[in-house]
């Protein structure tokens, strides 16, 4: 078994009373694209900052490829960061920005220029070397920040919500580009984001954070299809959560479970579902037509509301909107149910 790129051992970071990160264990594998996903204040950025060395854990240890780096200053760690605000040095040219790490290491000028040019090619900004950061657009600065970090060939690259400031289109383009750059350079990427869609599309594995604790670590499909906790089910995509008497009526157990809106079929009142299907009857209370699909709010027997999403394969807006008030039978495969811990 290979040594993990990053290993957290009972790591805590407390700011006075506030437990930003609380007694966390985590392993990030060599070469993977790993995302830390969570709302703001969930501890994901603090974890990243502790890996970079800007923050020190109040308890526990952090290992970088087996070496305990918990107390090393940032400049003695083989880790580089792409900052949320890019943090390009405004008084230096793009070339000097990218070459900064090499300049500090004492690499000679000729070699520096050669490597900077290679980096500018990698991030598709050839010929921009002599400009100043203020002359570049947000997306271009983003690439420079990436090049400035990658030129040092770090063991791990940390990205702190690097796409947050970009508009949607550029963002999607950069997501693809980041992923392909990661494949090419083969470095472990640790990506912090609060955008679940971003995390799902880009990552090999995801850790979901909430209130200083990791709720679940897994592949995007694990996280989406098999959420481990109520928080994960609610934060990643939308989920219907049912528990107590209503749950017992459907699954035979009072334990809370989640079911994704798109997994639920909307059947006629007296339709007979196949075996292995769970069913419940209800009345459509609200319909929202969204073009690509329609969102129904169904009040089920026992009093809870379920959100159901159906693609508009054959239906038109006229059809779906007239469904309001109809009695329906909902059914879904029992494998799509995730039973949740607390």
């Amino acid at each position, binding site marked *: 078994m290979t040594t993990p790129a990053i290993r957290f051992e009972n790591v805590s970071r407390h700011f006075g009373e506030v437990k930003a990160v609380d007694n966390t264990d985590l392993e990030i594998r060599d070469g993977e694209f790993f995302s830390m996903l969570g709302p703001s204040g969930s501890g994901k950025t603090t974890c990243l900052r502790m890996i970079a060395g800007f923050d020190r854990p109040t308890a526990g240890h952090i290992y970088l490829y087996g070496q305990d780096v918990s107390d090393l200053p940032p400049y003695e760690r083989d880790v580089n960061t792409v900052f949320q605000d890019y943090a390009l040095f405004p008084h230096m040219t793009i070339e000097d920005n990218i070459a900064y790490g090499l300049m*500090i290491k004492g690499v000679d000028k000729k070699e520096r220029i050669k490597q900077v040019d290679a980096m500018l090619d990698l991030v598709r900004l050839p010929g921009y070397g002599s400009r100043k950061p203020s002359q570049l657009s947000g997306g271009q600065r983003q690439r420079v920040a990436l090049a400035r970090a990658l030129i040092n060939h770090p063991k791990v690259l940390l990205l702190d919500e690097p796409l947050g400031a970009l508009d949607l289109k550029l963002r999607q383009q950069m997501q693809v580009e980041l992923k392909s750059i990661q494949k090419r350079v083969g470095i472990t990427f640790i990506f912090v984001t609060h955008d679940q869609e971003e995390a799902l599309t880009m990552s090999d594995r995801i850790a979901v954070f909430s209130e200083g604790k990791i709720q679940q670590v897994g592949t995007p499909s694990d996280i989406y299809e098999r959420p481990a906790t109520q928080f994960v089910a609610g934060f990643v995509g939308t989920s219907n959560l049912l528990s107590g008497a209503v749950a017992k009526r459907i699954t035979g157990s009072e334990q809370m479970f989640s079911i994704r809106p798109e997994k639920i079929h909307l059947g006629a009142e007296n339709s007979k579902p196949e075996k292995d299907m769970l069913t419940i009857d209800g009345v459509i209370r609200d319909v929202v037509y969204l073009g690509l699909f329609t969102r129904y709010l169904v009040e089920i027997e026992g009093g809870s509301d379920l959100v159901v999403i159906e693609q508009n394969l054959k239906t038109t807006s006229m059809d779906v909107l007239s469904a309001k008030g109809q009695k329906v039978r909902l059914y879904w495969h029992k494998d799509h149910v995730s039973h949740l811990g607390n």
Partner: protein
Amino acid sequence: MLNHISTYLYQRPKLILRLLLGPPMLYMLVVYLGSLFTLLVNSFFSLNDFTGLVVYEFTLRTYAKLFEATNLGIFFRTASMAMAVTLADIIIAFPLAYYIARFSSTRLKTYLYIAVTLPLWSSYLVRVYAWKLILAKEGIVSWFFELFGIQFILDKLLSIPEIGGSSLSLSPIGMFIAFCYIWLPYMIVPIQTALERVPKSLIEASSDLGANAAQTFRNVLLPLALPGVIAGSIFTFSLTLGDFIIPQVLGNSRYFIGQAVYSYQGTAGNIPLAAAFTMGPVVIMIVYLLIARRLGAFDAL
């Protein structure tokens, strides 16, 4: 009626600009640049040594006087003092400004701000005379040296030719101390403002890319704070160049530029020479700013 005026103005942004900028521009041109120009003109006149009257004819004779050994000495002495004071103030102010900008809480920042600017609330003269007492032979500073039995250090310091004297309050060293104190707020505030504008992430980025504290200071912090340092040094340098009170109260009998101007325009009635003397600091400041620009001090603005 008022509404009409407001609508009328709203539709004419250029008129508003003229109305707002007009008075200060007029003041700037007439009072400020005008008096500077008058000085320049006067410096090209000369004084008739026999009659003691000003001869209103263009001549470079007055400027030639500036190049006499005594007068060159005055320039050299004043400029050296200004330079020393500026350097010392930069060294004292930087850590203070850095602390205020980076480490203090909002609350503490307010208190420190007040602490820095508090001396400016009291009269300049009072503070200079206070320093005269502090630095006097029987003052608290020499008492302190005696208390620890290190009087010999002070004596040694005061026996240095050129900058020493019979006591601290009668020596260029004493003047230097008072100058540093008096102008310090003018150095702290601009540096602090400049440092405040440097995002924390730039410092983190530098250390992330392998730079230790000293390298980060040299490559990132200092270049970005330089405009503030230059702004502060313009204050300390030019204020020292023109001051005539501290040299008079604390110094020895050797003149500084300010004193020379003061005495030539006063009792001596030699307005042309006083004007020519005044042009000295103007030229020195212009040269200083050109050098600063050449060194890239304004690149990060």
